[in-house]
């Protein structure tokens, strides 16, 4: 029977390869070979080897796929409200989306970054960036939940973010838009870009024990657009590299005006030096306003604090923090290889890939081998920093990942392909097509000292021809390649949520061993927790009615509430008494102008409900929890304002109880 199954799988693979040849413009028939399906097949009940954390682009969320099956395991709400989990709807999670601009319900998440120790992924946290209203998020990999969000002052379009150092000392965030600083007068002519617009790079420190984030300092730079970044590692630990475009400092029609120069820059930052200046008090404390939001797994509640100051180091004054390296042309990626020696620049409009040498950069700085300055920042001579160029690799190089075996893999947006090349001799080894317009690539651990080079995933911008049509917009797409051999082999493509902008992956065992399966009810420190049905009650405080409610398979307590009046604000604080893995309960009440709750075992969550009509309002559990799930329900009676119906509540009394008569 096993044999038969395999044959069947092979048959399907062959069939799909043949049928794809029929409709694909490119020669995909040769790109997919007969054993592809077998390589991605993970039998029911078997686990995937890797977790793949994929940015949700304009959805603002992060999705988690198993590899190699590409099964979607989870969508983690980060920067956008999510009714499935009550994220941004429950009273406890609303503060997570608070900013200095108020509550922001939707943002775009572009990059993900896994935390590291000694240049290797440690499985503790994954970070994500909000692009539009600049923020960084930290997701706890024990719970797969967003634990912290910090807003970034002086920034706009937080694209060059989040990228981390090799012990996660810092997660950095470079502004895409240079803008007048928050405390400067922003009411200036847009055409005064060169005088008034500045870039800011934020260095957010990470507490190695609990992951706590803090903006340690910012570096003020000339006004340009920062795109991506990578930290140095091993020998180049202590340095950071940022790609930037629009060194023309244009402010209109950038597709033309920011493509004037033959070369833009990679900015090399000596952050150890910056730390020294910070310690020596060379920073300036600048008034700003930004939100810092933290979610507690003990109180099951987020708090949002507005902070008012940030320390800024000026790169044009502190001369030996920042250096510009010319890089052709509108560079996107600036990726550092596992040894830390090679920095690969990728110009989106360039037809070659420059590879820079860390040793040569150090020597150029020592020798002052400069080509003048750009707004007070030394510009290193291109040839003095260059190791060599990969000639004619393809069109529009974008991002490079590494396999730790001396090879680099670069995505080509314009020619829609992945090119494998040798870092030492800069020769192309292999190339495979993507479908279509590939953006970032991911090799598990591909940005660390020790990549795990079994698979490469390409995240595509456009999906024509890949799946059943779904209206004007098609499913976004990613493609999985086997890179264990000399030749890359396409083995699967799969749809994703939002735009799969960038992703990272890690070995599943780093996560599974630490997984939180329940929240211990004894440790629940929520101020409105109800630890046991005996404590359930309804309390009136003025026009606020607090319902201390419990849920357990298969009933709520209380499940009959009377005496709520028009004009009241009702807070259902629901504590899930279950202590069993994977048994959430839901909570919904008719007419609530809000989402519903989904409460994990041992957790308390609050739904605020303002009744808008007199009458009878059923409430029930929305998550199928047992054979008697449908019976998990109750009623709230709403009376007119000023009515004398007393506040009563109960569970388990019969309809003929005296209260019913009132």
């Amino acid at each position, binding site marked *: *029977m*096993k044999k038969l*199954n395999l044959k069947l799988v092979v048959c399907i693979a062959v069939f799909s390869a043949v049928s794809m040849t029929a409709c694909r413009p490119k020669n995909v028939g040769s790109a997919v070979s007969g054993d592809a399906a077998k390589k991605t097949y993970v039998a029911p*009940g078997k686990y995937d080897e890797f977790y793949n954390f994929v940015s949700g682009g304009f959805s603002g969320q992060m999705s988690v796929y198993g590899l190699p099956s590409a099964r979607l395991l989870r969508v983690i709400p980060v920067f956008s409200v999510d009714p499935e989990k009550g994220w941004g709807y429950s009273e406890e999670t609303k503060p997570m989306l608070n900013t200095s601009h108020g509550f922001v319900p939707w943002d775009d998440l572009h990059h993900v970054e896994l935390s590291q120790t000694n240049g290797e992924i440690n499985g503790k946290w994954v970070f994500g960036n909000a692009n539009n209203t600049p923020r960084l998020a930290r997701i706890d990999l024990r719970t797969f939940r967003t634990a912290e969000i910090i807003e970034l002052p002086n920034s706009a379009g937080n694209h060059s973010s989040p990228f981390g150092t090799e012990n996660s000392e810092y997660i950095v965030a470079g502004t895409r838009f240079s803008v007048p600083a928050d405390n400067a007068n922003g009411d200036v002519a847009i055409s005064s870009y060169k005088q008034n617009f500045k870039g800011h790079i934020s260095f957010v420190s990470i507490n190695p024990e609990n992951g706590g984030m803090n903006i340690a300092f910012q570096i003020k730079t000339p006004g340009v657009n920062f795109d991506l970044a990578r930290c140095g590692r091993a020998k180049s630990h202590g340095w950071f590299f940022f790609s930037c475009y629009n060194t023309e400092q244009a402010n209109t029609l950038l597709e033309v005006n920011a493509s004037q120069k033959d070369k833009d820059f990679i900015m090399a930052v000596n952050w150890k030096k910056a730390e020294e200046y910070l310690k020596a008090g060379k920073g300036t404390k600048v008034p700003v306003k930004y939100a810092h939001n933290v979610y507690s797994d003990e109180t099951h509640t987020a708090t949002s604090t507005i902070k008012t100051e940030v320390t800024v180091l000026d790169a044009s004054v502190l001369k030996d923090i920042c250096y510009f390296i010319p890089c052709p042309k509108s560079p996107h990626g600036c990726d550092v290889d596992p040894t830390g020696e090679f920095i690969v620049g990728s110009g989106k409009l360039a037809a070659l890939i420059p590879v820079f040498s860390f040793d040569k950069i150090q020597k150029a700085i020592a020798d002052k081998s400069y080509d003048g300055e750009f707004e007070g920042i030394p510009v290193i001579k291109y040839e003095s920093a260059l190791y060599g160029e990969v000639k004619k690799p393809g069109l529009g190089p974008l991002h490079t990942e590494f396999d730790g075996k001396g090879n680099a893999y670069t995505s080509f947006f314009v020619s829609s392909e992945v090119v494998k090349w040798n870092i030492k001799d800069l020769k192309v080894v292999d190339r495979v097509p993507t479908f279509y317009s590939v953006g970032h690539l991911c090799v598990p651990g591909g940005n660390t000292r020790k990549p795990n080079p079994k698979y490469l995933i390409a995240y595509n911008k456009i999906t024509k021809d890949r799946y059943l049509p779904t209206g004007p917009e098609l499913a976004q797409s990613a493609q999985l390649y086997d890179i264990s051999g000399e030749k890359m082999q396409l083995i699967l493509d799969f749809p994703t949520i939002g735009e799969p902008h960038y992703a990272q992956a890690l070995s599943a065992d780093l996560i599974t061993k630490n997984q939180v399966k*329940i929240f*211990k*009810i*004894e440790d629940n420190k929520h101020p409105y927790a109800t*630890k*046991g*049905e*005996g*404590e359930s009650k309804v309390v009136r405080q003025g026009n606020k009615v607090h319902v201390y409610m*419990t849920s*357990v*398979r*298969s*009933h709520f*307590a209380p499940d009959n509430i009377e005496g709520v009046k028009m004009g009241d604000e009702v807070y259902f604080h629901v504590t899930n*008494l*279950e*202590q*069993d*893995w994977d*048994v959430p309960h839901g909570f919904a009440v008719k007419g609530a102008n809000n989402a519903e709750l989904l409460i994990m075992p041992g957790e308390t969550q609050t739904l605020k409900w303002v009744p808008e009509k007199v009458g009878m309002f059923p409430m029930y559990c929305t998550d199928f929890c*047992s*054979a*008697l799930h449908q019976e998990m329900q109750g009623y709230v009676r709403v009376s007119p304002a000023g009515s004398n119906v007393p506040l009563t509540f109960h569970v*388990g009394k019969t309809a003929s109880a005296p209260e019913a008569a009132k």
Partner: protein
Amino acid sequence: MRKLLIIISMGAISAFFAGCNSNSGGESTAETTTETPQATTTENGNPSYDPNRGEGKFTKVELGATLDAAMATEGEKVSNVKCSSCHKLTDEKLVGPGWKGVTTRRTPEWIMNFITNTDAMLDKDPAAQAQLEICLVRMPNQSLTNDDARHLLEFMRKNDGVK
């Protein structure tokens, strides 16, 4: 006790083999699955399951001749948080069966194993399965510690009139 432990691990091994068989998708799937419950519940000769003790980590529970009031008080606290929403102290069924008389119907080992190893026992214990047919809700694993379980047992004894 050593003998018992060995017996338990043999039971685990046979369960493991049964798992292997079904995973490898052998042609005799149906036979394998009908074999499994026989192997674990048979009374004569096959000692892999003891319906008096149940299955779990408790093999011998020492009870005092009189009630340990301090333990019973602790047990009552645990009960209020984790048990009382489904179990009454009388013989009336709520979501689960009432607790009245449970310490006379079941051995201490069975009770403590059941409340700490609920899923496994619901899968194979005939008495637990009979109860499930009445209640139709599988008792949730409430993540009780060994001490919690012992304290609850003492509280159940108090409920049953032990002084």
